[in-house]
Structures are given as structure tokens and as C-alpha cells.
């Protein structure tokens, strides 16, 4: 396994063992327990399980002239209507035609529906190697091949691994037969949730020179051994330049990445080579428990080099300088520990929705009782969010309309009162919404600034009262926001508060611009006076993507909430108080 990483700053960076990855549940890395709680409460017990997919490929085509391809994998799910939705991306492995990716993908496996997945491989151009993987534009990369399969095909195999032939796909006809472009191996494992993270500092002594004339740039790769005997890389350390007695930066491993504390792990020490073929210096097999014992005995363990004549024991030793375990509290721990989630709602009453008296308006109240787009959004989304709200009283506002005899307001109380803004329960929201429609005239423009500022004020006030409260503002809108900069300013100002903002887009507008607000898909937000958002507090979901009946609805909506919540709590070292 010499080909898993190489070259360049991108290739020298640590993967998989950094504190940033641990337990934050950003959709790619860890299961989302907010989703599971909701689903279990609805009786979905046992109908789904969390699966982790890991990938490797072989025999890829060589697209670069002077060096080998730098492949990256992008995974999609294919919905019932054939629409592809991206689920995640691995890292870029440089200079390799037989890559073994470390970054894994988390998918929810539902027993009762067929989940078709599409895996596309791309060769990432050198100029993009410093960029974050999520920011890469796929049209600018070179397509290497694709493969498709159903999730159940992988699960049902005895060793949970499936090897697929990569093809160029239907779009690339021009050749009589799809050319073979290599093979992709997908391995699935059930995710184990664990709150324990171990932090280790590893050190090696007396590494041997491989070659008298070149330096040794050592790095470690830690892999886990699965039932079938395969080894799957879990993390790799950074590359240290020219050192025969290297001490690497702390490695953070969550038990769920490795299985259990007793699971056998293989630790290999390689000499970094910019060609991509790294030389194995030595290796050893230890579980986390063994490493803990090694640390307490303050002794080293000799590395071993497999040769044709058997295993040669080397002088070099591996030491575990520090070993500590910590518990990472999850979102549910905080809820159980007394944290309240406060749900707030803002509804778009701008004229672009159409005249509410006409049937083609998004605000049309059908006399037959069929809910309109806004009512459906409030019901579906509200149902999920209000599950977490303890007192079921929600501040609710409208924006972009003229209340009776007044100027245009960008933040008026939905219940029509001039003193308080709360409504009781989802029913309260529906009644307030219906009566507000009769009492206001739709106007414009679409401005989010005032509602966001008002929500931020409420979130800030809850801090003053010393209460443990996290606020979630749901904005339902039909169109693209008019003053993007003012919205960004309000978001940046609110980014350090216990607040998350979920924007649901209804109707058929093109919401591409709104995705800029969700830093998950782009860069950190910057306000007009130079302040940068402390954290990403926005999540944007187009409502048409949300189809009822599928668990993916709930996943889509709650995807980022636990991460945003935990980022806030952990940065301030706030722990749940039991």
C-alpha cells in the first residue's frame, strides 16, 4: 500500500486524525443523532441504520502528462425521479492510479427503499490542489469514470465489499463500447456511535536511512483491519521534513472510526516521496488498548519490516508520549442536560408570491382545504423543529408586507398583536398565518436583515437571563433576497450567538444565490465592515427537494443543526449539566 498519498502541500497534510473532524457530525463524518431521535420518536426504529462507506480504486487511466492522475471521488444518490444529489466527496490523492481514500462517507441505509448510488471519479488539476475539496467545481476537473450500484448490493455481500467496473457513462458515446477505465472497490461498515475520543502523541526513534543520498520525510498511516482481513486506512499524520526522530502532532481518533478499543490497528511508517510511491520504513500492529499500555509502560515497541525472508525486526521504536481519552458530548446529551431549543418563524409576504386571491399564488388558501406551498412548508418543517422546542410557544413574524394602514414592515408579528410575537403550537402558526393574509397587503422587497436582527436580539437576551437556550430561526421565502450584503452583515453579527438559521425556499425560483449564504457550500461570510463570520449558522434548503415520506426530508433539514450547535458549545467549553 504505497500509493495512498503524495506530493505537494496538499499531500503532506494530515487526514482523518485532526481535531476538526471529530464528532461534529457534518454529514460526511458522523451520524446525526438529532435525526435519529426524531425518527425513533415516530416509530422508525430498526428500519434504518447508519453505514460508513470507504473507497479504493485500481487501474485508473493516466490523464496527466508528467505525473499520474490525482483522483477524487464524488458520491451521489439518484432519487426516484432520476435527479442526482451529491452526498459527499473524498479527499484528493495525489499521483496515484491505485488510490485508497481515507475520508469516508456516511449514508443512512433504509431497508424498505432502493437507494441507487452513483460514484464519479475526477482527476483534480494541480492548480486546485490547495483548495478545499467541497469548493472544487467538477466541470473544471477531468472525468475519469463512474460506477453505479444499489446500496443493498454492497450490504448483502458477505464481506460487505463490492468491486465495480468504472465506465465512461452514457454521455461519452462516440466509442462503440465503453472503455474500461479501472475498477472501484466500495466497502460498507455499520457505524458505531461512540463519544470517546482518544488523543495521542506518537514518536519514533532511530529511523533508518533508506538511501544515503536523500532525506527521510516520515509520516504514519493508521489503518484498521476489518473482518475480511482487509486493511482500511483511518488516518494519516502530517509529513515531517528530514527527521529520523520524528514527533508528530497529536492524533485524534474517535472509537467509531476504529470500531472498538480492542480492534487491531496497523501503524505503518512511510518515507514520503513526491512521486507517490512512498517507501515503507516499518510497521507494527497494535490496538488502542495496546497503545495505552505502551504509554503507561513508558517503553517503545520495535517496528518490523516485512521482507522476502520474513519479518525483520528493526532498531527503530514507536513511543506513545501522551494518551488521553475524552468524552465528546452529543447534541442529545445537551438536550437531556437541560438545554432548550427555541424555534422562531418568519414568513415571506412579498408581492412576488402572487395575489393571494388567485389560485396560482404561493399564498392562495384553497377553500377545499389543500395546503399551499407555505402551509406545507410550515407543517413539514415545523413538525420536525417543534419536536425539540420545550414550551411550544414560537415567536412568529412576517416580512415584506404592509399591515393595515401602515408602511411596509420587514418584521411584523404574525399574530397581529403589537405587543407580543408568540403563537402557540403549529396550529397557532397556521391560524396566525391565515389571518395575517387577510390583514396585510403584499409588498416588497425581500429583506432578511430585520428578521435576522430581531431573532439575534432574542437569542442574545436569552443569554442575559442565564438560561441555556439555543434558538433556531426558520425563514420561508419564495425568492432571492434583495440586499444580499445587508443580509450578510446581519448574519455575521449574529454568528457568535446561540442561533441557527434555516432558510427554506418555496416556489420555482432559482435559488443559486442563496447558497452563498450557506458557508458549507462556499466561503466564510464577510460583512461590509471587515468582520468575518465566526461560524456558519445558515442552512439553505429548497423545498422542492423535500419530498414527504422519505427519511431524507428530515436529514436534509437537520443536517447542519447539530454541528452548528456543538461548535458553539464546544468552543466555549459549555458542557451539559446533568
Amino acid at each position, binding site marked *: 500500500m504505497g500509493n495512498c498519498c503524495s506530493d505537494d502541500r496538499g499531500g503532506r497534510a494530515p487526514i482523518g486524525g485532526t481535531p476538526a473532524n471529530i464528532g461534529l457530525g457534518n454529514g460526511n463524518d458522523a451520524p446525526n443523532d438529532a435525526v435519529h431521535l426524531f425518527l425513533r420518536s415516530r416509530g422508525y426504529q430498526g428500519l434504518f441504520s447508519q453505514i460508513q462507506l470507504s473507497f479504493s480504486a485500481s487501474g485508473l487511466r493516466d490523464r496527466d502528462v508528467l505525473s499520474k492522475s490525482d483522483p477524487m471521488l464524488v458520491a451521489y444518490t439518484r432519487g426516484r425521479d432520476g435527479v442526482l444529489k451529491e452526498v459527499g466527496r473524498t479527499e484528493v490523492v495525489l499521483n496515484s492510479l491505485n488510490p485508497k481514500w481515507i475520508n469516508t462517507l456516511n449514508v443512512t441505509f433504509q431497508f424498505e427503499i432502493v437507494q441507487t448510488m452513483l460514484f464519479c471519479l475526477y482527476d483534480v488539476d494541480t492548480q486546485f490542489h490547495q483548495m478545499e475539496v467541497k469548493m472544487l467545481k467538477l466541470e473544471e476537473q477531468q472525468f475519469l469514470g463512474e460506477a453505479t450500484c444499489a446500496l443493498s448490493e454492497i450490504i448483502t455481500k458477505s464481506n460487505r465489499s463490492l468491486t465495480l467496473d468504472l465506465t465512461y457513462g452514457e454521455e461519452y458515446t462516440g466509442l462503440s463500447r465503453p472503455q474500461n477505465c479501472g475498477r472501484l472497490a466500495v466497502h460498507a461498515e455499520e457505524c458505531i456511535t461512540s463519544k470517546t475520543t482518544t488523543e495521542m502523541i506518537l514518536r519514533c526513534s532511530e529511523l533508518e536511512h533508506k538511501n544515503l543520498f536523500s532525506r527521510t520525510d516520515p509520516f504514519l498511516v493508521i489503518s484498521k483491519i476489518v473482518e475480511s482481513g482487509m486493511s482500511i486506512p483511518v488516518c494519516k499524520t502530517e509529513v515531517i521534513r528530514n527527521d529520523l526522530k520524528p514527533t508528530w502532532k497529536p492524533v485524534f481518533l474517535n472509537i467509531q472510526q476504529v470500531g472498538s478499543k480492542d480492534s487491531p490497528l496497523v501503524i505503518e511508517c512511510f518515507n514520503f516521496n513526491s512521486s507517490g510511491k512512498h517507501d515503507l520504513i516499518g510497521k507494527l500492529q497494535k490496538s488502542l488498548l495496546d497503545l495505552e499500555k505502551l504509554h503507561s509502560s513508558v517503553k517503545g515497541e520495535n517496528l518490523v519490516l516485512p521482507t522476502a525472508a520474513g519479518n525483520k525486526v528493526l532498531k527503530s521504536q514507536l513511543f506513545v508520549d501522551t494518551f488521553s481519552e475524552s468524552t465528546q458530548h452529543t447534541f442529545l446529551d445537551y438536550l437531556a442536560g437541560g438545554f432548550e431549543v427555541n424555534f422562531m418563524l418568519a414568513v415571506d409576504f412579498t408581492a412576488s408570491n402572487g395575489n393571494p386571491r388567485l389560485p396560482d399564488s404561493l399564498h392562495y388558501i384553497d377553500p377545499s382545504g389543500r395546503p399551499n406551498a407555505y402551509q406545507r412548508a410550515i407543517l413539514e418543517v415545523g413538525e420536525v423543529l417543534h419536536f425539540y422546542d420545550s414550551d411550544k410557544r414560537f415567536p412568529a413574524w412576517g416580512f415584506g408586507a404592509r399591515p393595515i394602514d401602515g408602511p411596509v414592515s420587514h418584521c411584523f408579528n404574525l399574530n397581529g398583536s403589537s405587543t407580543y410575537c408568540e403563537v402557540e403550537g403549529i396550529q397557532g402558526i397556521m391560524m396566525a398565518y391565515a389571518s395575517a393574509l387577510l390583514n396585510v397587503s403584499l409588498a416588497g422587497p425581500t429583506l432578511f436583515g430585520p428578521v435576522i436582527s430581531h431573532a439575534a436580539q432574542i*437569542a442574545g437576551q436569552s443569554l442575559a437571563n442565564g438560561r441555556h437556550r439555543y434558538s433556531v430561526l426558520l425563514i420561508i421565502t419564495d425568492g432571492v433576497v434583495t440586499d444580499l450584503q445587508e443580509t450578510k452583515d446581519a448574519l455575521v453579527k449574529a454568528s457568535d450567538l446561540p442561533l441557527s438559521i434555516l432558510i427554506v425556499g418555496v416556489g420555482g425560483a432559482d435559488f443559486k444565490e442563496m447558497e452563498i449564504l450557506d458557508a458549507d457550500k462556499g466561503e466564510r461570510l464577510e460583512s461590509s465592515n471587515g468582520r468575518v463570520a*465566526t*461560524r456558519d449558522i445558515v442552512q439553505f434548503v429548497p423545498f422542492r427537494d423535500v419530498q414527504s415520506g422519505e427519511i431524507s426530508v428530515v436529514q436534509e433539514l437537520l443536517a447542519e443543526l447539530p454541528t452548528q450547535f456543538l461548535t458553539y458549545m464546544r468552543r466555549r467549553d459549555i458542557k451539559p449539566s446533568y
Partner: protein
Amino acid sequence: MSDMANTHKRSLEVTVISGEDLHINDRPIKNNAFVTVTADTRSSPSSYDSTKLNAPGESYPFWNEKLQISLPAGSRHVVIEVRRWSSSGRDKLVGAAWIPVSDFLGCYTPEDYLHFLSYRLRDANGQRNGIVNISVRVVTSSSSTSVPEFGITVDREKTGRAVTGMPVWYPNQCKS
């Protein structure tokens, strides 16, 4: 305004956490970057503190150092400057950020709130050059022995009106 009869001195605990994507002469910075924090004020002598040099991380340096400065009433900005130390003694400015005091005083949060803030750095030519991440906590210490500071901070951007003079009667002679 609350500053009117305020005998409290304000000081700030600024933790300079890290920097991102710092460049000097169009190349990522390798080492010797340090940060200075100053309260910008025209009247009182300004308070100043700086971090140590050898932060790990090259162009993404991680200082994680707590600095203390006093914040005289009337300051409107705290200035953060990232510089690169040079042995010849001529430190080069990598980038600066001017933080309005209103970003951590008197917005939605209680006064002793720990703010985590990030700012865009601009170099001597005004070009963007990375981001600095800090945390700020306002520490108010009451000091009954000191001469009360009088003055009402007027945020011109918000009010846009002329300042009204207010006659004040106090027993001690105030040294100006």
C-alpha cells in the same frame, strides 16, 4: 448613556487565537509573525500588548495567547496588527484590522460575554491579506479612588447629529 457617571475602568482580555492565509511579498509567510493589540484613542495614552513570536503553523499561525489592554472611555476601535519580526529591527506589517468597539460592547449580549470574532486583515496597500481570529471579553473593574471619567461616546454613524454640551458640576479639579 451609561458612561456618564461611570467610575468603572474597562479593560479587555483579548485572546489572539490564530491567523489564516497570511502572505508577505505575495508568498505565504513562514515564521516570526506576531500580533499587537492597541486601543485606538486620541486623548489618553494608548494601551498596547503583543504576542510572542514563534507560533507554529507558518501562514496559518496559532498563537492562542491572552493579552490585556485597557479600554479608555472614548475609544472607538481596537486595532489588531499582524507583523513579521525581522532581525534587522524593521518589522513588516502583514495586515491590520480595525475592530469597532460596538462589535463587543452593548450589542445583543451581556457585558461579560466571551465574544469569538474574526476579521479580514488588510495590508499597508489596503489589499486583503488573510483573516485573524480572536476572542474578547470585557472586564469591568470598579475603582472608587480614581477620578471619574466624564464623556459621552457619540457614535456619529448612528446619530448623525451635533453633540450637545452638558454642564457638569464636580468637586475635584480634573487634570486634563
